[in-house]
């Protein structure tokens, strides 16, 4: 990170702040409309998609390894310091999303649209396992039995086979991956559009800055 210039750090801070603004405004509205105890799907997809799009767009303007992860770290710290209080779940979610996007970008030696799409898909897809991972971490091993029992009871009440739960989860995951992929692809296009508006040269395919 010693190669980062002042401009790079400023841009990391700006995109972290943009993601933070989205979390604190739209995120608050969505959490009010759809409390996390009742619905995590819509909020997770919308917030994850926008967050991924913002962070990946930032990559256009800080073409250095690790910049998307750093944008995620800044956003997570904003969330930590926000007046809503320190909450472990969103803090971990944002850090993991930043890490997954950065990991996807590292798969290619240069920046390419498909790495953006993959990064977005992984980041938004994480919102599905996140809830389970955090509950396992926070509540301990007994929560696994609760999950199994809930699936069994829920299937019985709805007259479905318990294996349908797996299918439902798979469908929800595919929707998340698709939304995330679109967000990543959109970030690639958005970065180019902003660069053109500012009269800057966009990061071309094959150009990485790694």
């Amino acid at each position: 990170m010693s190669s980062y210039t002042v401009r790079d750090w400023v841009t990391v801070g700006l995109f972290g702040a943009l993601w933070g603004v989205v979390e604190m405004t739209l995120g608050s509205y969505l959490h009010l409309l759809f409390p996390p105890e009742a619905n995590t799907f819509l909020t997770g997809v919308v917030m994850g998609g926008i967050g991924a799009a913002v962070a990946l767009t930032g990559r256009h303007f800080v073409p250095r390894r690790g910049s998307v992860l750093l944008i995620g770290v800044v956003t997570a710290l904003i969330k930590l310091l926000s007046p809503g209080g320190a909450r472990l779940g969103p803090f971990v979610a944002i850090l993991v999303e930043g890490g997954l996007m950065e990991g996807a970008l590292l798969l290619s030696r240069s920046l390419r649209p498909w790495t953006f799409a993959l990064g977005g898909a992984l980041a938004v897809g994480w919102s599905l396992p996140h809830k389970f991972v955090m509950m396992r971490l926070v509540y301990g091993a007994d929560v696994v039995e609760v999950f199994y029992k809930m699936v069994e009871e829920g299937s019985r009440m709805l007259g479905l086979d318990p294996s349908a739960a797996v299918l439902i989860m798979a469908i929800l995951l595919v929707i998340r991956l698709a939304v995330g992929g679109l967000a990543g692809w959109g970030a690639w296009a958005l970065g180019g559009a902003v660069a053109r508006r500012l009269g800057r040269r966009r990061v071309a395919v094959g150009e990485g800055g790694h």
Partner: protein
Amino acid sequence: MSPWGYLLFTGWAALTAILVKGEWLPGLALFELAFGLAWSRQGLRMLLRPRFWAFVLTAVVVGPLLIGEPDVWLGPFPLSREGLTAGWEMAGRAFGLTLAFGLGIGSLSLSDLVLLFDRLGLRGLGFATALAMNLLGALEEMAGVTWQTIWLRGGARRPPAALKHFLVTTIANTLRYGDDVVNAAAVRAFDPNGGRPAPLPLHRADFWLAALLAGCSGLLLLLKVY
């Protein structure tokens, strides 16, 4: 207490909440509350939030209904005593872990974080975080004004185009704002990679806390609680 003490507390308390057996969780909770009363009263405010208690006590409600074989009836509900015990244990673990995070890292201020990053050789990250925190209001206002302008100029007629204009304009304006910040930093000769880090000395309370935590860990290891 210095930020190092809060970090040490978070690491120790979170690890202990995950590793100890259920019957030791009330002890951990009492220890955390004592820490909060001594050094993190602001963090204890989370105990006043209904959402915190809903999160913790859900386990106590769900446990008897879904864990173990039912052996008691409460009206129409078959309950399990084994599940009730497991539910309390889950609630205790959630309480311990949430408090560890909220009273420790959650109590650090922005300046504490900036100093910590500086000391850890991540001055740029501290700078970026402080910048982001200070620009939140300005960016929110900027985005709001952009949206209103697009809306007043007939953005509602073509929502996809309006959204695209909004995103491009907001990000472009943000980056222009960044140019001013870069110039201001250059004028002040700010160097994210050079210079000596600001001192962040340990306080006497940090040593007491470290000794106490080491003693507690030793005791828990002796009693094979982990």
